[in-house]
């Protein structure tokens, strides 16, 4: 019976090719647009460290004594608070983080010096954030305490300087300092670069920069501060620093801390520890505000509204467009089936059940939906190619993963059924007798 319906449907669709094409196109374009934008949104709002993000926390304290409203502690800490919390070693793992840029050069490589970005951090950074290594490895706490002149470099930089070869053991000139390369990362592209996200709620929705590439070089925190002394940028200051760029004793926020807490009990303990620290600092007269926060990774990203507002806007727009396409197709199918009232009435009079008429119509609209869905999938691929060509830092991230591929299929089927059910339902309600009176 199904084969017969299929044949009938194809015949009916062929009768009015332009209209069939119009309906298929409308569904394709609607699905293509919404799936493209939904995929981008999915890629940008996903969990950058699945399975691990719930154990990672971002402590915040408020070192800023200036009067005025302090609704939230600042996004980043001053050097002293960050060092105090880090030295207490109350977490399973902990990483201090400071970003800066500096001149780098590889001796023996025929390239002019170039500016690179440097992340100065502590040994736990690599295991804590599951950073993948191609060659060598990260450093240990020994190198942190000894201010060792060692570096880990990104795959991009390794390609640029050493043509992708194993460069472990080679020298890299950072500013005026010689450092030894001890590790080379695999291509690593966290989306967003979650560990340095901060200040998102001041960004006015222009948060695309959070999706840039990670730093070129990673150095031990203690060494980094010495190598690039004088070139550190502040997040915010409540007093302008006396010696700009040298921020260790300044009234500036510029050091971030991440901690890993493996169990709920430890999270509670750490929260208490943070509160205790703030209270103690208040007693010492250093803090005036004792507000603290301990957000986990995803909460921290949410708080910073990392998803660029343009991306959200595009997604809403695309779904409104899909709705318009859907209304359009349902309206057309309805008109088409209603035009065949006579034919349907005749079939009903000859003994076809309502269910049979319903199925027949649903097969016809299902065909349109399926072809439209396939077209939509194709357009999604084209759409993502277009996103690739966009002038945004996240352009290179756009690709269709398996889950979004499946979502496209489900959406296509849902859309086609939705588009088909109402017209088919109307058609099967045609009464036999009325249509035979002609």
């Amino acid at each position, binding site marked *: 019976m199904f084969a017969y319906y299929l044949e009938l449907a194809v015949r009916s669709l062929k009768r009015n090719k332009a209209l069939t094409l*119009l309906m298929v196109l409308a569904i394709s374009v609607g699905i293509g647009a919404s799936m493209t934008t939904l995929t981008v949104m999915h890629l940008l709002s996903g969990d950058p460290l699945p399975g691990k993000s719930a154990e990672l926390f971002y402590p915040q304290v408020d070192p800023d004594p200036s009067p005025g409203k302090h609704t939230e502690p600042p996004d980043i800490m001053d050097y002293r608070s960050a060092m105090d919390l880090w030295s207490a070693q109350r977490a399973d793992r902990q990483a201090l983080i400071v970003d800066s840029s500096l001149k780098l050069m590889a001796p023996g490589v025929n390239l002019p*010096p170039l500016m690179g970005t440097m992340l100065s951090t502590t040994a736990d950074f690599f295991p804590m954030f599951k950073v993948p290594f191609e060659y060598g490895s990260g450093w240990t706490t020994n190198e942190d305490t000894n201010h060792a002149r060692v570096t880990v470099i990104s795959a991009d930089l390794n390609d640029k300087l050493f043509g992708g070869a194993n460069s472990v053991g080679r020298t890299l000139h950072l500013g005026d300092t010689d450092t030894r390369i001890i590790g080379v990362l695999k291509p690593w592209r966290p989306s967003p670069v979650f560990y340095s996200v901060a200040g998102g709620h001041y960004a006015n929705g222009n948060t695309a920069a959070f999706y840039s590439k990670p730093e070129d070089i990673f150095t031990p925190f203690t060494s980094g501060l010495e190598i690039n002394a004088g*070139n550190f940028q502040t997040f915010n200051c409540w007093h302008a620093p006396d010696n*700009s760029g040298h921020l260790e004793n300044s009234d500036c926020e510029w050091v971030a801390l991440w901690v890993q807490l493996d169990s709920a009990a430890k999270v509670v303990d750490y929260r208490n520890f943070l509160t205790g620290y703030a209270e103690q600092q208040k007693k010492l007269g250093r803090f005036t505000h004792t507000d603290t926060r301990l957000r986990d990774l995803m909460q921290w990203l949410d708080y910073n509204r990392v998803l660029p507002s343009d991306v959200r806007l595009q997604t809403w727009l695309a779904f409104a467009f899909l709705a318009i396409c859907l*209304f359009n197709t349902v*309206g057309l199918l309805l*008109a088409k089936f209603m035009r065949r009232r006579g034919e349907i009435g005749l079939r009903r009079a000859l003994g076809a059940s309502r269910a049979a008429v319903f199925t027949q119509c649903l097969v016809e609209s299902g065909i349109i939906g399926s072809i439209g869905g396939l077209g939509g999938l194709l357009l999604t691929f084209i759409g993502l190619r277009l996103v690739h060509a966009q002038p945004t830092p996240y352009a290179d991230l756009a690709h269709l993963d398996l889950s979004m591929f499946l979502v496209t299929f489900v959406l296509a089927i849902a859309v086609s059924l939705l588009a088909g059910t*109402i017209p088919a339902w109307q058609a099967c309600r045609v009464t036999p007798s009325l249509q035979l009176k002609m």
Partner: protein
Amino acid sequence: MEIQLVFAALRRHRLATILIALEIALACAVLSNACFMIANRLTMMRINSGVDESSLALLQVTGYDSNASIDLNARVVAGLRAIPNVKSVSVINAVPFGKQAGASGITTDAAGEHFGGVVDFYVGNLGSIKALGLKLVAGHFPNTDDFQPMSSYFPTDAKVLITRSLAAHLWPDVDPLGRQFWSGKFHFRVIGVIDHLAIAQPESRSSTNADWSVFAPALPGKFLSGTYLLRANQKDVPRVLSDARAAIAKIAPDVVLDRQDSQTLSELRHIYFASDRAMAGMLLGVIVALLMVTALGIVGLTSFWVQQRRRSIGIRRAVGATRVDILRYFQVENFLIVSFGIALGMLLALVLNMLLMKHYELPHLPLIYLPIGAITLWLLGQFAVLGPALHAATVPPMVATRTE
């Protein structure tokens, strides 16, 4: 009478009519809001920077020892001046559409209690005011001895120029000349008001304070180095910049040229607004696709109705209706459906705008965009219905006598 006839026919196609009206309502809501968003982006992209962009280029170098910056400034300025067609070379900390530099909160009292907002501080040497082409509207430009050495990000005690919009914000209805403001330990006194000077990253703050800038005069040195403003005749600017980019390797072999930020100012503006252009393009694409889908939907639906009603049309023709009457009938029918959709669509547009305002930095939808959307859709509907309606008008009265 005609209208009653139309209503009677539409009642028989209630569901299809509602669907197409809903489609138009949604199209109307999206159309008005998308037009408004495009207009917003275009306004932003046309922001008046207050400087002679077309005559300027920026050269930015990094990676030098900051203790050697006085020597570096002297070498670079002299070296760049030697390039043919260069009119002037000045030292500045930032330019509109370039890298962010010198953003700071200010207060209108020394104790730091009356917060005045976050503003951009442009710090430049003697030649930079003339090079930028700032337009003075009150007071005077700094004298030569107002350019002082700096021991930090800003001069400690400077006579400054502020923009008209910043003056109006800080001291509404009062003469801003001679007034003072502070940023921590830095003290500033207003000696002149300039027409416009956009902040370096105009989209990073709300559009009302995109022109809140201060120009502070200073002498080049450790804290004012590495960023050079080149002025030339408009037609020479690209050439001058490429010469300068090539020359820097000889002038200062130890520095790293920041290629991304060493651009003409027109190019910097172009790059800065690239994502807005892309977004405006996308919105326009959605509008076009949406109007096309809607128009084709109307064509398809009306064609069906014409085919379905061939007999009734024939009968009406047979009992005396002219071709024009038949044409009119379909036009009126379409007008009614579209009007119904538009009425709903305007409400929906306002709801959508409220949602957008809540989640995005978007102002109120000006009511003028509602009639724009309505008229577009009315015209679109009439245009789309014309083909099928003309086709209907050709149905001969003979059809009435046939049985199908």
